[in-house]
């Protein structure tokens, strides 16, 4: 048991720092923070990462992964989050790519993986449906074989950034025989196909990132089917475990908590700084202590994956604890904003409003409510642990 950094690790950390110093410019930071310029800016950033070979470090090396050790992963994530650099958009790099390189054929790998690595295509995820949320296998969007095409009809919902997407990976029903988990297929669909309509959904944070995606007789070439027809559920399950590993967001929560402390130092009212309030200190330290433990839980899972294990039910634990902590930090930031915590976006300058982060705190808190719902709700994660770990 040894968790100290080796000389190689220190050298790696210095390399990461030097790269961020040079590549992550102030201009890029500002544009990534602006929702209107976000898409263009994050793509630009991901291309820089790709040029360095770091955009998909956890992919197998043969497809473009970096072959990092868990410690290197940890170092990279810590350095990234401590500078407030947003993580890569997960849909292509972290969600569909593992399915393609694990279950796709050679042609699919050659066709899609390089474009994902270079952020040439923006992907979105077509899983949930109005009637299929936690019970994902109840999905009804239908794909019927017609010659060398599938004809897709139905609707997907809660599709993040569908408005930006070039491609959507979908679970579709190709058979209604047997158990509902059977008869589901994994299909890659070009968003420019005729018959696709994207309807925006305004979310609780008064922003638009969620959508409903309708499919009306959308023709999809059979070569876009991953693996075998009717076996998509197996692939999706493997993917969901991948989705959940990054979801703990330990490094980002650590940074967010530091930020809350910094903000609380500047809040002085009635002659006292908020940071000196014992109740506030207790709330911060409660979260900090949970995070200290979760950081090591995360490392333990990473280490076991590096040793050849697949992320399994442990990733459910990371998801539950990680999202609970994210929400607690977001709530704390709201409370620091006090009477300014409800401010909606406005044309007025922050100087006129008289507050810097009230509206941002509100937005992240409100959107943060989604974290315990998406990626398999926390209730579903508990079912997974109960079944897979406790054998209940």
């Amino acid at each position, binding site marked *: 048991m040894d968790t100290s950094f080796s000389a190689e690790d220190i050298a790696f950390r210095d390399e990461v720092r030097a790269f961020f110093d040079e590549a992550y410019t102030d201009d890029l930071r500002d544009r990534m923070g602006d929702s209107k310029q976000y898409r263009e800016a994050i793509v630009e950033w991901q291309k820089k990462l790709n040029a360095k070979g770091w955009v998909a470090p956890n992919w197998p090396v043969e497809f473009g992964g970096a072959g990092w050790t868990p410690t290197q992963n940890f170092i990279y994530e810590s350095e990234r989050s401590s500078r407030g650099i947003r993580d890569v958009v997960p849909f292509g790099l972290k969600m569909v790519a593992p399915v393609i390189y694990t279950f796709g054929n050679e042609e699919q790998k050659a066709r899609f993986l390089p474009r994902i690595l270079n952020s040439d295509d923006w992907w979105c995820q077509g899983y949930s449906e109005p009637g299929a949320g936690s019970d994902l296998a109840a999905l009804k969007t239908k794909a019927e074989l017609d010659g060398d095409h599938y004809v897709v009809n139905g609707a997907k919902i809660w599709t993040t950034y569908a408005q930006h997407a070039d491609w959507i990976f979908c679970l579709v029903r190709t058979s209604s025989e047997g158990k509902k988990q059977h008869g589901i297929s994994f299909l890659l669909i070009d968003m420019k196909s005729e018959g696709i309509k994207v309807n925006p959904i305004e979310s609780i944070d008064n922003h638009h990132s969620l959508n409903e995606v309708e499919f009306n007789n959308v023709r999809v070439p059979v070569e876009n089917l991953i693996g075998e027809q009717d076996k998509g559920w197996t692939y999706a399950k493997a993917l969901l475990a991948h989705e959940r590993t990054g979801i703990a967001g330990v490094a980002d929560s650590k940074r967010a908590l530091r930020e809350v402390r910094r903000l609380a130092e500047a809040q002085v009212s009635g002659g006292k700084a908020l940071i000196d*309030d014992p109740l506030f200190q207790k709330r911060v330290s409660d979260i900090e202590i949970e995070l200290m433990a979760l950081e090591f839980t995360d490392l333990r899972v990473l280490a076991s994956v590096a040793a050849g294990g697949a992320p399994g039910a442990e990733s459910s634990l990371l998801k539950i604890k990680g999202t609970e902590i994210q929400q607690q930090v977001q709530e704390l930031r709201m409370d620091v904003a006090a009477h300014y915590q409800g401010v*909606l976006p406005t044309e007025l300058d922050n100087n006129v409003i008289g507050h810097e982060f009230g509206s941002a705190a509100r937005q992240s808190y409100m959107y943060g409510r989604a974290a315990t*719902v998406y990626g398999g709700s926390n209730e579903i994660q508990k079912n997974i642990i109960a079944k897979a770990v406790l054998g209940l």
Partner: protein
Amino acid sequence: MNFDFSEEQTMLRDSVARFVQDDYDFDKRRSIVASEAGMSREVWQTFAELGWLSVPFAEEHGGFGGGPVDLMVMMEEFGKGLIVEPYFATVVMFGGLLNAAGSESQKAQYIPGIIDGSRLGAFAYLERQSRYELADVLTTATAAGDGFVLNGEKVVVSNGVNADTLIVAARTSGEQCDRSGISLFIVDAAAPGVERVSYRLMDGQNVANITFNDVSVGADALLGELNGGFAVMDRVVQEGIVALCAEAVGLMGQLNSKTLEYTKTREQFGVVISSFQALQHRMVDTFMSYEQAKSMLYRAVCALENNDADLRRELHALKVMTHKCGKHIFEEAIQLHGGMGLTDELDIAHYAKRLMMINATFGDRDHHQTQFNALSYGSQASDSVASMSDAA
């Protein structure tokens, strides 16, 4: 001992409930919030015709002569209907301050206009730095000739942009956080030197930052004693806290019943989700939270009406309980609604946002718990209900 409402109180409650039921559905509320004023003058006139605007005022001024319980039953119903019209700002706070400290001529000048619906009011007390410390006042009023000249800025003023008349807390002597030396002034919102910029809060409120640049007022603008404004504010804030917490209890009840209803209709895994014991227990917990919040409200309203010696303690406990139960209930409501709970389209999000804004008005949970502890353990006995320090 009984917990029954009088015949008049029952009639008042039913009259608001009927209005909400028949004339204020969620679509109507949405269109009112989206309007430029963020409130409906037509609805306000209906409030006047139904006599609701007269409730806390004495009969000699044309009022109903009601007390805290009358306001409580109405506010609870306003909460159920998510009413955005400025009853709280105009009647409870602006009217309450006039009631508490107005001279006969001030009452005669302003109260009839409140009652007939022609005059909207606002209480301008928050400042950029003040957080929840009522006595933290930098806005100044300097004696000049027969009257005063006001300079400074008030922020996040509820109903500030629609108000015809403002009551402004300004410093006439003493240091930034001194309780003595604060005076209240009645200021025409259209007076030269008054500038307003408006923006929105997430619960739909149209609030304003109001700057006072050499605003001259006469001697008759002084409300109550010179330098004695704090005691008046403090008392009216006590009434305000009970009214707001009554609204919160109305919101909580609606969230619980809507969530219960949803779980009885939403099917996953082939059954309604209300059949899952894990969810049943959570709804039992939110039911208990609602009952506890309601009991605390009833305790506090009795203490307020009897002006109990322990009133402050009761009110701190009420604010803590309302925050805790409100948060528990809205978080569960969103979570159990899943993706639907995260949309702006469904009313659930809006009940949650209003609860959050109530929690952030006149001090949040931590603030009141600190005050409660000070009273309980005597280390730092406080004699202000919404004051963080006991600097005097």
